[in-house]
Each structure stands twice: as C-alpha cells, then as structure tokens.
C-alpha cells in the first residue's frame, strides 16, 4: 500500500493558528464560548439543517408506513380485479384512494402495493445495515487494534471479498436459491457488503490507537476490553455511522435492483423492485405501472442519502 510520508502528517507549527487561510487571527474568537461536544455540536447543526429535517421526516414516515401499512390504505395489495381495473390510469385527485396511482397489469391497486411494498425495502435496508455494521466494525476493530498477522489475514480476507463486484456476487448467491425469503436476500447482501465498514472501522481504529488518551489508558493498566469499549469504539463510531447511513440507501437500491432482475424478492412478497420488473412490459402504453414504484425507490434512497449527508457534514467539521 502506498502511504504518505511522515512529513505530510507531522504538525510543524508551534503556533498553528495562522494555518487557516480564512481569518487567521480570528480563530481564537470563533471558538464558541461554551465548549460543545462533537455530538451536541452536530445536533446543534442538524436541528437547523433543512436537508436533515426533510429527510428525517421522510424516513419517519417511511418507518410508520412499513410498520402499519393498513393505516394508509384499505385496499389489499393482492386483490386483483382484471376485468375492471386492467392497467387503470391514475386518478391524481383521489388522494389515498385505491385508484390514486392507478392499477397494474393484474388489476391490483398500485397505491396499495406501494404502501405495502415499503416494508420489504425498509426491512432489507435496515437489516442489512445493522448486520453489516456489527460485522464490519468487529472485523475492522480487531484488525486495526491488534495489527500484525491478525490484521494481515483479516485485511486479505477483506480484499478478497472486495474483489468480488457487489452486484455480480449477489446475483450468483441469490440465483442458487429457489425460494428467496427476505432473510436470504438480507444475508446475501451482508455476506458481500461488510467489507466497506470493516475498512472504515480499521482505518479509524488505527488512528485512535495512537491517540494519547489510548496510550495513557494503556499506561494506566486498562484491560484490552476496556480500552476497546470505552475508548476506541466511542471515538471510531462517528465515521462508521456516516458510512452506514449512506450505505443504507444503497442497500435499498440493491434490493430493488435484484428484485427487478428477478433474483431478489419475488411474488407473493410485495416489493417495489418486483413491481418495477412487472411493469416493464407495459412501459409504452401504461408507464405509470413502472414509474410509480421506481419513484418510490428513488425517494426512499434519496431520503437516506440526504440524511447520511447531513449527518456527515455535522460530524465532520472539516467539510464545513
């Protein structure tokens, strides 16, 4: 691995104040009167960030919809009425009615399917992110903290998994299963997706390991477990959370893509990806069948992306 020479990272100035180009002599001034911690400072910023508020609102709404879809529609996503509703056009003014977004090729209410389909996306997105974060953090922390041959082996394994293109790997795994329950899709994505978090965790643990407070804790005789849980983990968690939130949107997109390709979730599970896939035949004369679930996928992914972006900007003052 190429690495930067020590000279670039070593701080050279005793008085580093003048290294910020913006307003060198005012640095002392801009320091807020009361010292805020990283998290409360981030929260202070987030509360007044419209991007954050909008995305957080959307995410809460999505969570409610996926938990209680029945609250939002009375129609069942599986009730098919081919005779009356085949490819029925949307009635944009019929808010929250079954025909609001029209009907699909089997005469099912698209509005209802969109509402019920949220659950699959959210479960996959949240499930994969949670497991990937746990697994990746564990591997990254062990590799980064212990170093040596442990690091070598774990890093090579990470390299190997990274060498497999994500989508291709998921395709290969998932085509092997004839019945693809939601947990199969989750596990397949976790199997291939943990490497990103592992790398991030490893990197930040290596940095933290050399920090004075960790050295001090060691010198004071703290146990490895204590150092890892009390000092390393809390300080490594910020970059991990940022990567995880942004990745969450990606997993939702991946589930939709796989379901669209016919190797992810499948009927009778209600999923946006499945609906997009079934709408492709009628794209020319009934585009709404494809476009509406597509838009739902995009809005969901966008919400998590904006959320992750806002959190990153708040936690990483360098980017301000």
């Amino acid at each position: 691995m190429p690495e930067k020479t020590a000279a670039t990272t070593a701080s050279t100035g005793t008085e580093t104040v003048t290294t910020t180009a913006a307003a060198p002599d005012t640095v002392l001034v801009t320091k807020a009167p009361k010292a805020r911690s990283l998290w409360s400072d981030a929260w202070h910023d987030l509360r007044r960030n419209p991007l954050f508020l909008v995305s957080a609102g959307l995410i809460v709404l999505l969570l409610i919809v996926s938990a209680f879809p029945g609250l939002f529609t009375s129609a069942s996503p599986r009730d098919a009425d081919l005779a009356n509703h085949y490819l029925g056009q949307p009635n944009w003014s019929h808010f929250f009615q079954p025909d609001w977004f029209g009907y699909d090729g089997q005469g099912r209410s698209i509005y209802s399917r969109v509402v019920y389909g949220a659950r699959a996306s959210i479960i996959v997105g949240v499930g994969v992110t949670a497991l990937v974060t746990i697994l990746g953090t564990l591997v990254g922390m062990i590799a980064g903290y212990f170093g040596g041959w442990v690091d070598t082996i774990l890093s090579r394994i990470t390299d190997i998994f990274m060498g497999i293109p994500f989508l291709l790997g998921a395709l290969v795994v998932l085509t092997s299963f004839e019945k693809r329950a939601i947990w199969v899709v989750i596990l397949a994505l976790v199997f291939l997706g943990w490497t990103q978090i592992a790398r991030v965790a490893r990197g930040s643990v290596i940095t933290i390991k050399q920090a004075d407070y960790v050295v001090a804790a060691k010198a004071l005789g703290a146990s490895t477990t204590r150092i890892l849980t009390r000092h390393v983990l809390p300080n490594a968690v910020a970059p991990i959370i940022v990567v995880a939130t942004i990745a969450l949107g990606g997993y939702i997109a991946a589930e939709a893509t796989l379901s669209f390709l016919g190797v992810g979730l499948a009927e009778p599970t209600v999923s946006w990806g499945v609906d997009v896939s079934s709408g492709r035949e009628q794209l020319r004369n009934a585009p709404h069948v494809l476009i509406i679930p597509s838009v739902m996928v995009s809005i969901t992914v966008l919400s998590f992306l904006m959320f992750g972006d806002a959190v990153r900007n708040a936690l990483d003052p360098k980017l301000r």
Partner: protein
Amino acid sequence: MTIIEETAGVPAPRAGGEASGPLLEVRDLHVEFHTRDGVAKAVNGVNYSVASGETLAVLGESGSGKSVTAQAIMGILDMPPGKIPHGQILFRGQDMLTMSNDERRKIRGRKIAMIFQDALSSLNPVLSVGYQLGEMFRVHQGLSKKEAKAKSIELMDKVKIPAAKARVGDYPHQFSGGMRQRIMIAMALALEPDLIIADEPTTALDVTVQAQVMDLLAELQREYNMGLILITHDLGVVADVADKIAVMYAGRIVETAPVHELYKRPAHPYTRGLLDSIPRLDQKGQELYAIKGLPPNLLKIPTGCAFNPRCPKADDICRTEIPALVPVTEQDGSELPGRGSACHFWKETIHG
C-alpha cells in the same frame, strides 16, 4: 478617528527613509470578519510605514491583528468573510485598496512579496520547488522553462541551499524545515521586490535554524535594500534585525519605538509585560512573570483600553476611554523621535 492626527505628530525614526517618502504606508486601516457569531473586529485603525532598506517589526500575540494587517496589504484576505470598511494602504503613494484586481496582481510577487510561517503547507505539495520558483519568472517575466530553471537554481544557491542543481526537481516534503523556509524566502526574493512581508518566518523552525534563517533574511534585505515588515510574537527575533517596532494589541498599535529604546524603556504596560515574561539567566530560580488573563475576544473587545482587564496599572479612565497613540517624550519634555504609546499612563510607565 482621532488617532490619525495624533500619530501624525510622531516623528519618523530615520530621517533618511522619510525624506524620499515611505515605501509603504498603512493609514487608519480597519478590517473586520463577518462570522456566524457576529462581527470580529480584527484591525481597528492601524497606522504604520516602512521605507526602503528599513525593517519594521510588528509584534503581538495571536489575535492582535498583525497577520490580518499583512494579509490586507498583500491583498490575500478572504473577502468575504473579511471586509475593509475603512483605511488606506499606500504603496509608493498610491492607494492599493482602490486599484483594480489586475493592477494589484502585478504588484504582488513583483513589488511586494510575502514569506509565510508554515512553509510546508504554504508550498504546493505536488509541484517541484524548481517549478514553483521558476513560475515567478515564467509568469512575470515571460522566461522559457529552461531559463526559469536556471534562474531557480541561481536563487536556491543565493539562499544557500546545498546542491541546488541536484535538488531543483525535488518536492517540498523532501526538504528539511529550515531548507523549506529558505525556499519560501527564495520565492519571495525572486523578482527582487521593493518590500517583503515576513509573517512569523521562523516560528515553525528549530531554535538553531531560526537564527540562520533570520540572518539570511537580514543579509539579503541589506543586499537588495528592500523594506521588510517582520511579523512575530517573539521579542528575541526582533532585537537583532529590526529598526523599529510596532506593538499590536486587539487590532491597534499600542506602542511604537526604535528597537533598542523599546527594550530599554517600554512606554506601555503591555510591552513591559511582554519584556518581563522573557526568561533571563540572571533571574534563574525566580518565578517567571506572565501577563495574566487571555487575549481579548475580538467579537467583544473591552470598552476603553482593550488591555485594561489584564493591565496592572488599569484605572477607571482605562475602562471608559480609548487611549490615543501619543508621542512619548522625556521627563523634561524633549522629544523622543519615533516613540509613541497608547496608554493613559505612559508617563508613569516609562519614567516611573
């Protein structure tokens, strides 16, 4: 501002410099920064001048406005958030603040050059030093790549970088701190400017290297008869090279004096505090003096004299009235050329 008239009465330290008119004159300069938390008044009416061949040391803590003043002269303030609501910066009698961007650009580097504190971050990490030096000749004088390279080697020899020819293609990180600062100096000297502003040129260096770099700078200044503004917080650096000193505090000049007189008899409690906090061999074993308190918050500069919360001599008048920079005289009223103090109690301070 009343300060202008008062300082106009302060005679220049060296008659020779003044006769031909100062090279650079800063008049009643104000700089403020508009930040999230309010307006930070970094510079509040600074006046100073430098003549050819003269060295002015600007002394102060961080936050005193010494660097901001220099950046305003150089035209490298970030605007916004920076703003110059008031003041003039005259270079050979012409106000640079009213010049067009292009006119100012032609002065930068060619007539006025700057040496920065942290040479490592101030040099471009991905371009060779030869390229960065040669750039001056290529842009300002239209030399070819080859000619520029030859000139760069010449410059590196001039600032005593060993094996200049072999090292011209090296990158900044491959040099030691002292060598990097020499490269910064070489870059500033490239076009033999009339004035050099050195912003804490030795702060980032080892003590032993500091002296070498300062000597080099002083030597080159003499050779080219340049004006030099030396910005520093280190009284030790100043003594040997400067002709006159301006001490800054909270964006104002609180004392001006020819260098040796300042050391002998400071006329401002702040200057006295600075001098007293230098460790001295003959006081070994005693507790070292320190100015109590912290530099002022530029968002909320204290009323009256900005130094009053930290000043041992502070009285009621200090908390209400801003002291003007007035000429300092001997006890019998005879003039002390070039001396001024912005303290209500300057007489007690210098004569007491």
